[in-house]
């Protein structure tokens, strides 16, 4: 009986979070049942093949990029010791704090034909344009590079959390079967971290799919640019929603394919003894350092320096009280949203673990699809939903109480928080789920047999064991909310601005220097919690290792 209620509440909360997606599904259904094909037909004939091609290239490229960058850095910083490893282990999150389009702007500024690099080349060698070959930064390759640099921390963070929990005995079993540490990594650690890697990559890809700013700036036409072109250019919102529906269908197929390929395999390990790290020396240590520093330098330090330069140029802003108000708005919003979203995610992910019925699993999966859909589309879906509820409320209250409360849901921060929940739930759920998969089910059972109810078990057993994953989720969602733009633009109330909106408005008018201070502030606001939380993660890792003595096998 109680189980049924629990199931019902899970499904209900998942469905509520998935409601804005319903609007898209509805548009698609409309199409199926004798809808208007003219827009889609035109698009099919002219641009969609290209959208698909570009989107695919972009996704494959970004997937390869984030996996290489994320997994290598995660493995090096967890299982090896080398100079700078501690600093790097949290600093590698930083690229995430950088909005992708800002990074895109900085690199374009530097590497474009009119930028300092090419100008210098021309001036030094007396070349003019066309005399020399230089990679075109505004290209699909450039977009892949920039998105990989900015998004690899997803893979890094989530994979790192599982590497930290990986059992020593499993790796030792590999070595007793004749595998070198490197082979152990490839054949055991990597496949075992697969849910995490896939999760991180899926998030990066969903973000890529939903990205508008970067690809648009780089002139790469993708499905998402197509959606907006259809909406803005053709003035056809339904057509745009239909395209979004196709996107959604593609994402669902992808996810299903991956789930299916995992089959029955499980990833929890029996012995929780964490693995001993390798002490790297000499050339290997330098190489490891280099491998970790490169993505940090290109993904964060260079763009941040550029931002800093702009900020110095526009120093007046720092004395503006408006600007500090923006900062506070952004920070508070990100914090509240992150806590809210992660709480929801834990509730859903844990519920799914406890009651893995088809119904619950499907509805939770559905609630987590929002990340792949461009934020603006979600915002519009939500708008339709919330305003119609609001209108009903207003109608009722005016009729019965002769009182007009105004737009309670759509006109307040509620709408924003709701939108963030829909959009970023996936980030949190997937991160938490990757962590949960590492906890043996017998832990749950051992706790319940002692008379604890599921929620108590969650508090006593799972949350402590999940700490790295939950903190990771908080960081990811927080930083994402800080950067979030389209939904914030559409749904925020009057006179409420955030750093992201300010940076975007400036950058959108190609006033890059003015975009510098808010972008830098965004990075800094994101930075502080990132450092604090990753400290906490590091500490929980060390706790587990405290009494443990290592075999510092020199690799």
């Amino acid at each position, binding site marked *: 009986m109680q189980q049924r209620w629990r199931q019902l509440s899970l499904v209900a909360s998942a469905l509520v979070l998935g409601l804005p997606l319903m609007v898209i599904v509805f548009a698609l259904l409309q199409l199926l049942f004798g809808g208007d094909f003219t827009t889609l037909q035109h698009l099919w004939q002219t641009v969609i093949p290209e959208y698909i091609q570009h989107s695919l290239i972009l996704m494959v490229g970004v997937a390869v990029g984030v996996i290489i960058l994320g997994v290598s850095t995660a493995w090096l910083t967890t299982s090896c010791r080398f100079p700078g490893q501690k600093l790097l282990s949290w600093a590698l999150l930083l690229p995430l704090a950088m909005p992708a389009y800002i990074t895109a702007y900085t690199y374009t500024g530097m590497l474009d034909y009119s930028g300092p690099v090419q100008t210098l080349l021309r001036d030094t060698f007396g070349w003019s344009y066309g005399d020399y070959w230089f990679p075109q930064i505004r290209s699909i390759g450039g977009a892949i590079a920039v998105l990989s640099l900015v998004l690899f921390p997803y893979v890094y963070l989530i994979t790192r959390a599982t590497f930290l929990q990986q059992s020593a005995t499993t790796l030792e079993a590999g070595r007793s079967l004749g595998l070198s540490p490197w082979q152990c990594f490839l054949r055991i650690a990597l496949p075992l971290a697969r849910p995490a890697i896939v999760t991180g990559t899926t998030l990066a890809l969903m973000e890529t799919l939903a990205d508008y700013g970067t690809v648009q700036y780089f002139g790469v036409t993708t499905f998402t640019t197509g959606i907006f072109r259809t909406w803005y250019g053709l003035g056809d919102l339904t057509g745009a929603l239909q395209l979004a529906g196709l996107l959604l269908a593609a994402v669902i197929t992808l996810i299903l394919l991956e789930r299916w390929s995992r089959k029955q395999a499980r990833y929890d390990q029996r*012995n*929780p003894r964490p693995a001993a790290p390798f002490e790297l020396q000499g050339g290997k240590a330098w190489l490891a350092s280099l491998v970790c520093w490169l993505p940090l330098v290109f993904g964060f330090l260079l763009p941040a320096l550029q931002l800093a330069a702009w900020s110095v140029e526009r120093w007046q802003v720092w004395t503006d009280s408006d600007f500090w108000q923006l900062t506070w708005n952004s920070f508070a919003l990100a914090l509240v949203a992150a806590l809210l979203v992660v709480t929801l995610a834990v509730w859903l992910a844990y519920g799914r673990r406890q009651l893995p019925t088809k119904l619950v699993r499907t509805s939770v999966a559905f609630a987590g699809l929002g990340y792949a859909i461009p934020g603006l589309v979600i915002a519009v879906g939500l708008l339709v939903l919330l305003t119609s509820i609001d209108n009903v409320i207003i109608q009722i209250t005016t009729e019965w109480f002769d009182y007009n409360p105004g737009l309670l849901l759509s006109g307040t921060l509620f709408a924003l928080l709701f939108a963030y929940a829909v959009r970023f739930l996936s980030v949190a759920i997937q991160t938490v789920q990757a962590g949960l998969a590492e906890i*043996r089910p*017998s832990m749950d059972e*051992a706790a*319940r*047999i*002692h008379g604890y109810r599921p929620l108590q078990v969650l508090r006593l057993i799972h949350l402590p*064991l999940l700490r790295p994953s939950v903190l990771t989720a908080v960081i990811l969602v927080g930083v994402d909310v800080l950067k979030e733009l389209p939904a914030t633009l559409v749904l925020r109330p009057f006179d409420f601005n955030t750093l992201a909106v300010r940076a975007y408005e400036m950058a959108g008018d190609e006033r890059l220097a003015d975009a510098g201070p808010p972008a830098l502030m965004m990075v800094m606001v994101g930075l502080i919690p990132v450092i604090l939380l990753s400290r906490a993660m590091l500490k929980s890792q060390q706790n587990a290792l405290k*009494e443990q003595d290592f075999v510092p096998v020199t690799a």
Partner: protein
Amino acid sequence: MLSLLQLDHLHVHLGQNAIVRNVSVQLEAGEIGCLLGPSGCGKTTLLRAIAGFQQVASGSISLAGQTVSAPAFTQAPEKRGIGMVFQDFALFPHLTVAENISFGMRHASTREKLQRVDELLSRIGLPGYQKRYPHELSGGQQQRIALARALAPRPRLLLLDEPFSSLDAELRERLAVEVRQLLKNEQITALLVTHDQQEAFAMADKAGVMYQGELLQWETPYQLYHQPRHQMVADFVGHGVLLQGTVTASGSMASPLGMLDHPSLEQVESGTPVSFLVRPDDLVPDTESRLRGTIKARGFRGAHNLYSVELDSGVEVLTLSPSHEQLEVGSEIGLRPDFDHLVVFAADRCELPSLPSQAPSFRPVLPKTQSA
């Protein structure tokens, strides 16, 4: 009086497979039950169903008269008041030994907890280990902590899944006695899975053998050993070999061991082909005996050697002999049958079912088995 634990024609499925089939068990309050059975026969699955981790496909589970599991209904595990020692220990890696043990004592004061932890730790031979983390313990030590954790809250029913498997013989025996005492003192009913028949015999009030999901017999350990109701039980418990014979006259049987006389044969019709159980201690080495064979293999067993002997008729049997009387492999030996109990089955039930998915069917054995 109501039984504390009652399983009623229980069936449990994992995926498509029927893992537990038609199991009925009764345990009175305070009794200790013991499940034996080959690896993979469904013991753990049965315990998990009792604990409430596994839905039942048909039949029911009752605790103190109240149905807790039925096909459409599974009471939540935390409401059952059951303790469990998991086969893989399932210690909480983030909690110390003391925190692990006191985990289930939800309503106890800190002092009570401390006291109980101290008491249990010294009972299991690990005093002073309060502050350790599970990964700082050896396998056997972890297992003992798991045991202590299950005992600490004094559950009304305790399920133990091979709780002593990682312990050395001496400790295991001592602990079995301690635990039995503790269970009896604190009036805890227990169901124990073990692979150690000695342990089962030593601890259990009731015992049973599971085979491919079915519980073949559920009686006292003595009955299990001396009056097995089923060939599988006879075969599984105590190293038996089944031989063929034919009853020739009332109380007499022609067999590879020669003519055997036994009161339990009196009820069997003359001419019936039967199979009967021969345990190593049923055959005594005797240089004078006419029954002779060749030693095929010798195994040192501490106090005894276990010899595998091929009789002249080609039949292989086992026998024990004190280990300082070294008999060489290949040498001849005389054997004297010395049956205290003769366990006889209908001969056509002699083949063991070999397909894992095929359940053994229960045909009643022809003569009612008896003990002398």
